[in-house]
């Protein structure tokens, strides 16, 4: 066994060759296909990709939860540095240890807060339970802490919110409550899976401002999952792009969005309508041909090859590109990235 990928550096999490395979009636689905990445302490890593690209599955694996939604075979290594300073492999923890890691070390928030809030309990009892499950606290102290958390979430009337049931709150308020629950034990990593996708942009702006404020205060790291490239660019330090279960590009946000190297990232960025750009009347967007591949039938070679304008037959459809460094801290999976970057590819 190789030495720990996080020994002697500033990584909080180091994921190596993560693969998650689901058994389904229609056949095996390789939802995550050999993904490696690190999350540094206190940083925000954005995980971007389209529907079905494997973002949620990768995140759930990080929490030791990928197996919960179905029959899953999980391979690879997920090294996590614990608060006490020692480390563990999430993929090899007992159920009991996993429960301690979840909530205490890593917490997760979802797109739909109702999926993690219990509709029959008040906000107060859910936060108090989250606190007392992981720490030895009196219920009075937990109650006080819950109130403080709601206050920190910018909820206008925390006392009233405490005695409310989730369905009595607006979408934005529920999201704040879910964040409060997630933060109750001061995790060192918050996994946020499309936490603002269902919200209006003005409410999204509130939640993003809130997450940034909390991060500055607590120094936690965030894995922020989104299909919105603009949002990723805005919230994250680094970004990682997934396509059809694989990681295809990774790097500092400014690099990935300014000098994308993977054809998929490039064309995706060009296909987005952007506000306030000069344009001709009737001007078209650059459309990406074809469809997002089905998880049951992933294309051979580079999974993007059927939609890629740089595709070379006999190469791209036969050989899966490996991740290569293409600049400081910038990595890409494309057989032709050098030619494309040099403008020599047609």
């Amino acid at each position, binding site marked *: 066994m190789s030495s720990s990928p996080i020994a002697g550096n500033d990584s909080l999490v180091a994921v190596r060759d993560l693969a998650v395979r689901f058994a389904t009636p229609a056949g095996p689905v390789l939802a995550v296909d050999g993904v490696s990445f690190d999350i540094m302490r206190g940083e925000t890593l954005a995980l971007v990709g389209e529907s079905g690209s494997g973002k949620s599955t990768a995140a759930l694996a990080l929490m030791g939860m990928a197996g919960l939604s179905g029959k899953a075979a999980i391979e690879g290594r997920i090294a996590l540095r614990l608060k006490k300073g020692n480390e563990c492999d999430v993929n090899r923890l007992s159920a009991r240890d996993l429960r301690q890691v979840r909530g205490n070390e890593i917490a997760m928030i979802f797109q739909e807060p109702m999926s993690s809030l219990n509709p029959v309990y008040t906000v107060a009892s859910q936060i108090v339970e989250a606190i007392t499950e992981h720490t030895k606290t009196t219920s009075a102290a937990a109650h006080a802490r819950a109130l403080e958390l709601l206050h920190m979430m910018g909820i206008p009337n925390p006392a009233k919110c405490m005695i409310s049931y989730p369905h009595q709150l607006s979408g934005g308020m529920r999201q704040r409550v879910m964040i409060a629950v997630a933060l109750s034990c001061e995790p060192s990593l918050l996994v946020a899976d499309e936490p603002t996708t269902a919200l209006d942009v003005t409410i999204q702006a509130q939640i993003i*401002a809130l997450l940034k404020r909390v991060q500055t205060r607590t120094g936690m790291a965030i894995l922020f999952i989104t299909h919105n490239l603009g949002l990723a660019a805005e919230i994250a330090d680094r970004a990682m792009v997934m396509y059809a279960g694989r990681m295809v590009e990774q790097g500092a946000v400014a690099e990935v969005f300014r000098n994308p190297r993977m054809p998929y990232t490039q064309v995706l960025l060009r296909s987005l309508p952007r506000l306030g750009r000069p344009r001709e009347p009737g001007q078209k967007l650059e459309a990406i041909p074809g469809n997002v591949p089905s998880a049951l039938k992933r294309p051979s070679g580079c999974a993007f090859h059927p939609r890629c304008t740089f595709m070379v037959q006999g190469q791209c459809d036969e050989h899966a590109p490996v991740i290569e460094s293409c600049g400081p801290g910038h990595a890409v999976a494309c057989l032709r990235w050098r030619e494309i970057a040099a403008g020599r590819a047609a």
Partner: protein
Amino acid sequence: MTGQVTVPLLDVRSLRKWYDIRGGVIPHLKGHVQAVTDVSFEIARNEVLGLAGESGSGKTTIGRCVLRLIEPTAGEVKFDGEDVLGFAPERLRRFRRDAQIIFQDPFSSLDPRMTVGEIVAEPLEVQKLCANAPERRDRVVELLDTVSLSAEYLDRYPRALSGGQRQRVGIARALAVNPKFIVADEPVSSLDVSIQAQVVNLLVDLRAKFGLAILFISHDIAVMEHLSDRIAVIYLGRIMEVGPAEALCRDPKHPYTEALLSAVPDPDPAYRRQRIVLDGDVPNPVNPPSGCVFRTRCPRAIADCAHMVPPLREVASGRQAACIRL
């Protein structure tokens, strides 16, 4: 002004739709959801008007009222100068041919038991637009071709199509009857990012090719700017601002438009706007604030904002906004 007065294709005046709320042990009227109040706008022939606003602001309600898929509580809707709300059933049927709708959700808006061919043929049959079956089939193939689907899709069922393909079938169905006007209610919102551009481009083409007028409903203002000639920004059932798309997005006048645009994230830091984070939530439309409905969240509100509903008025050349501070 001299010269010919052209009648707009669609002319909406003081539209109101309040939904009744009933309840209690002995059901009685308990109040109203004030979904749309005093909304007026025009759409010219071959013009795309974007209707921007957040969830619950009344966009879908407006779209359905102008097509008379639901009955407005009050107001006037004129199509080609004729009073839509006064149409008798036969005239309404003809109107339904001229004015079509495309829905947000390509998954639920197509009947799963019908093939693509049957779905697109249905309006042709209902409106008796083809003399016989072979003619109808040719027309269906032609329509599918218009939306870049080959004839091989004729016998497929919706479940065997991707989201973008389903949305294109929905568009082909809407085009079947040669409409002059289409309400497109969030037509790309449920699509994958890499597929959205295909459908947006299709709408750009169709508009040019058929001279269509479109009421384009979306909460994605960047897509809207791309597609629309003018944009109307709506908040809690009222129009806050209306103006040419490009000018409105570059230089918003109303404080709400300003905040809305500032909240749109952009991948390019050079284009990042100074974020204006609004406090609180959108108020409940059952009991909207007095005066300006935006005042409870408006960074520029003053005491007077509570006292009167600001009318939509010209605030700069070609620009209208409803705000007393402008």
